């Protein structure tokens, strides 16, 4: 029935579901949502778009070449929150927002996110469907199209948050060449160092998943972030316990991990 090697993983997921529902229940019963530390990259978003508005140049958003039907789905969905906030700020400031997508399903969701944000900011007519573009589902064809757009339109703010392969640095450097202030974020460890050196602000791994709650300030969503922290504490405890027991010659933890957590 249950695959033995995945019992630990299943246990961690069950623990997270319980922690999330508990956090949600607390907030709904009047408890205050936990405080979140400042994330400089997300704090800078408003300033970046404000600068682009003052310069009279557009803002560009890309989530890279990840797909919504593979393991990149969570990061692609999380990037939509950053897009939604960017669109809201663009609508409020009267700035033009260009969005390029590589996944057709994601493109449809981008259209909805931008349209909804413009409407909720009271500028439904400011939404231009031709500014949310599907370029190509091929990695370098997409990169070539996005680079061309960034250079031609001389974007002043480049938001690069999502799932990237080699095209990540191409997009970031195109933004730098255009003189854009750049906010980048990904969970791909091969690309993250490039973003750190090439961009002004970087979201590291899990910060992207926290972006939605952080930017919305929505109590229930913020409370659910605590569940992530509980899970992290559990993993850290397991690591510390494993190191200590292994150091004193016991293989108990490694045996448990080998049997139930491969």
């Amino acid at each position, binding site marked *: 029935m249950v695959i033995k090697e995945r019992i630990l993983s299943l246990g961690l997921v069950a623990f997270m579901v319980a922690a999330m529902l508990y956090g949600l229940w607390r907030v709904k019963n009047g408890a205050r949502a936990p405080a979140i530390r400042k994330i400089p990259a997300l704090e800078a978003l408003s300033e970046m778009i404000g600068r682009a508005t003052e310069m009279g140049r557009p803002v560009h958003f890309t989530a890279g070449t990840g797909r919504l*039907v593979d393991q990149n789905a969570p990061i692609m969905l999380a990037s939509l929150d950053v897009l939604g906030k960017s669109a809201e700020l663009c609508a409020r400031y009267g700035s033009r927002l260009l969005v390029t997508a590589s996944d057709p399903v994601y493109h449809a969701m981008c259209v909805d996110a931008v349209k909804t944000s413009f409407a909720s900011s009271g500028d439904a007519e400011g939404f231009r469907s031709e500014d949310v573009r599907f370029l190509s589902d091929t990695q370098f064809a997409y990169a070539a199209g996005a680079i061309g757009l960034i250079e031609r339109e001389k974007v002043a703010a480049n938001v690069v948050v999502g799932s990237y392969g080699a095209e990540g640095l191409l997009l970031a450097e195109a933004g730098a060449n255009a003189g854009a202030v750049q906010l980048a974020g990904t969970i791909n*460890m091969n690309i993250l160092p490039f973003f750190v*050196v090439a961009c002004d602000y970087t979201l590291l791994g899990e910060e992207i998943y926290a972006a939605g709650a952080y930017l919305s300030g929505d109590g229930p969503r913020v409370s659910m972030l605590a569940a992530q922290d509980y899970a992290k504490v559990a993993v850290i405890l397991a690591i510390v316990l494993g190191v200590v027991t292994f150091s004193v010659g016991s293989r108990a933890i490694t045996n448990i991990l080998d049997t139930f957590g491969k």
Partner: protein
Amino acid sequence: MRQVYVAITLIVTLLVAFDGYVRVDVVTKAAAELKNWGIILSAFALGLAALGLFTLHLGRISRRTPEWPYSAALLFGLVWFAGAGTFIGTTSPGYVFYYRNLLQPIGNAVFSLLMFYIVTAAFRSFTINKWQSATILITAAFIMLGSVPVGEVIWKGIPEISGWILRVPNTAGQRGIIIGSAIGGVAAALRTALGLERMRG
């Protein structure tokens, strides 16, 4: 209506997720079927997106905007590959010729830009104006010298320091980010499955 969407999302997520944890034929078959639906939906979305692309570039050509020749080239490629792939097949010589001699070399050319971009990104970040930049410069110098024979000739300790940087601080930092990202990903998936995220699409 929202409850219906949430219920569908929850059922689909549970089925696909359970397929990773249990060995039950019904669940495996249902999950495989749902994954196929995902592929079919993607194909429809691709058709719609291509239509949007076609309309945008057709408009540019008709308005004779400054970039209209590029739009014409794009439309030619789009029509050619779609037509050739549909009517003469993706293994036919006509299709393969353009794929190998046009699409692949252009892709490789874009990929090769990376080398120049790595240099320009490194040049900017190696400008020592902050202690972080100095750390990156020193670390990169050790890693680069440690990866080539001349590093050992300069000083025997360079490959050892380079290896230590990669094995200890680099691995520790990467694992921290990977564990955080993995947990964040699971949490994001759970929030979506439970209908606690905003519905889009």
